[in-house]
């Protein structure tokens, strides 16, 4: 027991994403933007998305601060949804949120998450689930925010 169990959470791919995050930075202009924070721990994400005419995610970027898990999750999320259509991205967000709380999904849905599916091991660490889901919530909120206004 002890720290060996940590390997279940802090897999190499997660630590890689945290150390060298994908899509970290700011977009010059964005069609969708949201700042979301977790007030209990102070993690914060500023997510920007550019949808093209076909509602495809052309560009996505994030800034923010937080723990290894939240930073890796944001990196993995942006890498996974880049190039996806809005509806696909929303489905992925739902898949991730469901998986983080232990709900089963068809393998094809999981495969669509790319690297991010490894983070679903977060359910073994209940205190850290919110760290992993923050980025996906931000994605969902940012994309839905706009359609509310339509």
């Amino acid at each position, binding site marked *: 027991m002890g*720290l060996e169990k940590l390997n279940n959470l*802090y897999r190499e791919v997660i630590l890689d994403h945290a150390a060298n995050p994908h899509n970290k930075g700011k977009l010059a202009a964005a069609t969708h933007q949201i700042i979301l924070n977790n007030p209990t721990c102070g993690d914060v994400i500023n997510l920007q998305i550019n949808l093209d005419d076909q509602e495809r995610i052309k560009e996505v970027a994030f800034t923010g*601060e937080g723990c290894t898990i939240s930073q890796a999750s944001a990196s993995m999320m942006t890498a996974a949804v880049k190039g996806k259509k809005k509806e696909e991205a929303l489905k992925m967000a739902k898949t991730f949120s469901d998986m983080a709380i232990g709900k089963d999904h068809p393998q094809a849905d999981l495969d669509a998450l790319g690297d991010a599916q490894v983070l679903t091991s977060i359910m073994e660490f209940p205190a850290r689930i919110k760290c992993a889901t923050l980025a996906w919530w931000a994605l969902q909120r940012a994309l839905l925010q706009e359609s509310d206004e339509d």
Partner: protein
Amino acid sequence: METFSKLRADFPILDQEVNGEPLVYLDNAATAQRPTPVLKQLMHFYQTDNANVHRGVHTLAERATADYEAARRTVQAFINAAKPEEVVFTKGCTDALNLVAATYGEANIEAGDEIVISIAEHHSNLIPWQQLAKKKGATLKYIGLTDEGELDMAQARELITDKTKLVAIAHATNVLGTVNPIKELAELAHAHGAVLVADGAQAVPHMPVDVQDLDADFYAFSGHKLMAPTGIGVLYGKAALLEAMPPYQYGGEMIGEVHRQESTWAPIPYKFEAGTQNIAGAVGLAAAIDYLNQLGMEQVAAHEQKLVDRLLPQLAQIPEVTVYGPHDPAKHTGVVAFNLGHLHPHDLATALDMEGIAVRAGHHCAQPLMEELGVPATARASFYIYNSLADVDRLVAAIKKAKEFFRIGTGETK
């Protein structure tokens, strides 16, 4: 040390494994654990004396009232208040501080007045004053810290002036582990005609507190940090101040006479105790104080000092560990906030949890202080009477393991 090692038998919760390791509970600044004698007293109250207080003529009501008022006198003696009616039962420390802001503050703070607090305050001793100042058009001023992390008393002497109406400061801080000179601050406040409100949440459980010697006008603390149930706390206030203050909430128990258009209020402390109070909580608080009194608060403080004396030099041996607050153990309470390199404290806390060690990680309800320290969050270990030198060593060993796991200080990132 021996007396204290025997105490563990009174805390069955400590005798368990967490993630396959024996539990080391070091989150006492958040809440302490309850010993069996306190739990037994609660059970005894509910099984033999339970009734509503102050309003029955039957025997149980009489007994419950006697228990409740005996608890008030136990608190009075514990903090050396001059009179039992200076002890107001509240939901907790936050509730007690809000009470002062909503009553004394509401009646006495005016536009142009100044309220002085410190940058190291817990949100519960910050937001009530911030919002009061906003509402009244008063100014909220912050005393900063010295390089050592102690309250800057030179700055306090500049900031507390004749414009100051209220000074609110923690007796012991919940992140830096410092003890503030409340007596000196009270003297300073009084010299300028201001009142001194002390937040004793992190002090009363850990050291002898004498409110008359401190000359604090108001002194607030929670029960659950000294092994009483949650939902009970205390506001001490000087009788003359409490008497002049308007009520906090309206309802049963706090009234003198009620007519269709007018009401009068009960004498203190009942004026501030509207509705059915947490009677069992008060009984449990008295039981927890009895438990501490058997040990002696001087001995409690000395025990925690030994643990800090063991911890700080060991942390200083790990170059990647940053300790916030004084590095001199003699100036440090049993609250130690730290970070390990650039590792986020949540990652560190998860690693320690895997070793069975419970610490807090986050902003500790002190966001302005985090901003001042230039960190988003810290880890925090905090001791109590049942912790041992072995617990300290387990913590240090686990920090070293986490350092290896995350390859902190090796120049590479894991």
